[in-house]
């Protein structure tokens, strides 16, 4: 669960001003709270599990207008909204929801975009149940929060469907140049925020499509690429320049970019270093890191091989090691690529699983098997060096460890061997070391993460900021975006005053 964030005085004043507007008062009066509480939470329509687990089409279909208005009605429009305190990018949630209730969808889109340049993405991949929805006052009263995430998705889909993307007014150019390194969620957020303030922003991206983990990691069935593309196009319309296939640290160093006249930098290079368990057989053919497996399928479109040239092993018996969202994405991908058995192997119990509840539910519906309290010991190969089996060990839960979760301990003599022809290791990623290796002035923490001042996201180098998984290790898209938003504010201040 995410900590409740502190609401600044400025944000409080902004919320209050909106809350006190006449139309809001009228809307509140139009339906008593008692009536609002009678409206059930509107279900997200989904494609049938037996159909969707065979293709890469999106699973969630999105609310329609009537369902969205009903859902918006459930919100009490409280004087002290809990939801905003759970949002890392400080969206004025009550306002955008009440605008949906008022059926003023255009105004609702604008409201969200005041603080979030990528709502179609957040509406799909944010863990709202542990961010804004967990602190929703309706949840505190009834246990069932307003479906804030589904409404956010609804409103961004409406905007894209209309084809009339709203562009905010951009102030005259400040003449300052900003280099954003990495086009993932953190970098895209920084770029959008700083472009809106009149700075000239260039994003440098190592891969050939912008999006970072949103494009190489999160599968089409959860975040269609067309939606990501539309969000990136929006940034380009704001004046952001994209330099693809550009590896800062290799194609040019940060020092080189400084000489090219960039005034401030944001490093958002992500957790691009896959972790392995260091057990025997991990380098057999058919054993992948989740990063490689998902990159082949999502970025390189191996699911359309041989129309696309990049292949991927299509296992009949697939085991995915881990219990996070990346593991869920991998195992559901394996199922879609024809695995008869697609299983999660996780060393703790269901309760400790870090994946979002919705992802686990979707996986279960699609026929994914869950082998909990189980850990792999080694992989066994055939004479060609391909994985053909794995040896596992059963675990049981012992005392809580430093993370507060009960520590899994091996059950003696419980080893067993099972046949597998595809293994995906999804036990986490570490920060990508490339920037730190080629920029010695950057102070690096214990896990290879860049060290920052959490109040400003400033690194040890003046004018150089960082955020997202390069400082957090392996976190979420929305936390990366929250970092980006915080950093952008500080960078704007730095660019205007020349210091931080």
């Amino acid at each position: 669960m995410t900590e409740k964030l502190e609401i600044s005085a400025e944000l409080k004043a902004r919320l209050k001003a909106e809350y006190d507007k006449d139309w809001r008062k009228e809307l509140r009066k139009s339906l008593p709270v008692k009536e609002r509480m009678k409206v059930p939470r509107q279900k997200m329509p989904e494609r049938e599990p037996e159909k969707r687990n065979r293709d890469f089409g999106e699973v969630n279909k999105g609310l329609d207008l009537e369902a969205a208005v009903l859902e918006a009605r459930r919100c009490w429009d409280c004087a002290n909204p809990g939801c905003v305190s759970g949002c890392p990018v400080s969206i004025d949630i009550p306002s955008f929801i009440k605008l949906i209730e008022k059926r003023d969808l255009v105004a609702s889109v604008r409201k969200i975009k005041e603080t979030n340049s990528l709502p179609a993405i957040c509406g799909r991949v944010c863990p709202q149940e542990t961010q804004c929805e967990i602190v929703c006052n309706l949840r505190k009263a009834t246990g069932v929060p307003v479906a804030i995430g589904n409404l956010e998705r609804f409103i961004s889909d409406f905007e894209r469907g209309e084809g009339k993307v709203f562009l905010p007014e951009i102030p005259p150019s400040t003449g300052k140049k900003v280099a954003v390194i990495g086009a993932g969620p953190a970098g895209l957020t920084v770029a959008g925020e700083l472009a809106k303030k009149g700075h000239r922003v260039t994003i440098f991206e190592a891969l050939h499509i912008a999006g970072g983990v949103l494009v190489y990691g999160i599968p089409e069935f959860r975040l269609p690429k067309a939606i990501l593309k539309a969000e990136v196009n929006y940034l380009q319309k704001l004046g952001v320049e994209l330099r693809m296939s550009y590896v800062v640290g290799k194609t040019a160093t940060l020092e080189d970019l400084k000489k090219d006249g960039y005034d401030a930098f944001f490093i958002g290079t992500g957790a691009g270093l896959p972790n392995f368990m260091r057990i025997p057989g991990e380098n057999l053919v058919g054993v992948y890191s989740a990063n490689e497996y998902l990159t082949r399928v999502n970025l390189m479109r191996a699911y359309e091989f041989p129309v696309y040239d990049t292949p991927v092993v299509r296992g009949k018996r697939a085991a995915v090691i881990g219990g996070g969202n990346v593991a869920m994405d991998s195992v559901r991908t394996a199922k879609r690529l024809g695995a008869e058995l697609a299983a999660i192997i996780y060393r703790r119990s269901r309760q400790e699983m870090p994946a979002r509840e919705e992802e686990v539910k979707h996986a279960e519906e699609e026929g994914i098997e869950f082998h909990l309290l189980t850990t792999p010991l080694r992989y066994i190969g055939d004479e060609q060096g391909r994985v053909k089996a794995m040896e596992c060990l059963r675990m049981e839960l012992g005392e809580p460890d430093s993370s507060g979760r009960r520590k899994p301990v091996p059950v003696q003599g419980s080893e067993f061997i099972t046949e597998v022809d595809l293994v995906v290791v999804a036990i986490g990623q570490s920060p990508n070391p490339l920037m730190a290796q080629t920029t010695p002035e950057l102070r690096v923490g214990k896990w290879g993460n860049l060290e920052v001042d959490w109040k400003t996201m400033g690194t040890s180098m003046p004018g150089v900021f960082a955020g997202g998984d390069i400082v957090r290790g392996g976190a979420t898209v929305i936390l990366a975006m929250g970092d980006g938003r915080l950093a952008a504010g500080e960078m704007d201040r730095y660019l205007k005053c020349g210091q931080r």
Partner: protein
Amino acid sequence: MAKVLRRERLVPNIHLLEVHAPEVARKSRPGQFIIVMSDERGERIPLTIADWDAKRGSVTSIFMLVGTSTQKLSLLQAGDDLPVYVGPLGRPSDIQNFGTVVCAGGCFGIAAIYPIARALKQAGNRVLTLIDVKASYLFYWEDKLKKVSDRLFVSARDSRYDSKEYIPYKLDSLLKAEKKIDRVVAIGCTYLMYRCAEATRPAGVKTMVSLNPIMVDGTGMCGACRVTADGKTKFACVDGPDFDGHTIDWPELFSRRKSYFDDEVKSLCAFERERFP
């Protein structure tokens, strides 16, 4: 997008690709590579940088026709755009004055060894270069290599050449004939590099090889290129591509190189069907 300046066939199965990439050219060092994708549906493949010209802003690589990706590259014309051309990637080769260095290159490795031989020569080494091809009509760049080598030995597996000249055998005889060989650098197919490493193992002469596992992103993000060196897993794209050949788990590398053999055939068939319906 990067523009193709020149694509030409050097010998029947080996092509040269010169691309306008001024930023890559500015940073290129011997031993590094680029990743290229021939078209929007292509695969990202690594190619060693064989030469570069910072003034002209160009980077040159040599590739051998093997599968779909290299077929597609071989059809490029000057003026074509490449959707991906990224680099320079990997760590540069270790260039010092070691004394006497043997540079061994086979097939596409003949070009790949060239910038290393040149840099080693400039660093003051005595450079003995060995090149090998499958048949004598496949030689190229001998003149370029001659200029940067103290001696150049050539071998081919056809009747014009003595089989004793095959690089691993030649290495063996050089090790016996020369007073001292301080280092060997070998680039070519996995088999050739493996044989070179085995040839120098008894004498314990440090032998650097430039490994060529399958890669995807080339920046350490995916781990496709993992190799075992000294019992530890390394990523060839960021920890290499150069490794001490005596520390490599060669059987593992051979099997990982063949990961997609059947798919490669399938892909090539699909490509041919598309071109010649």
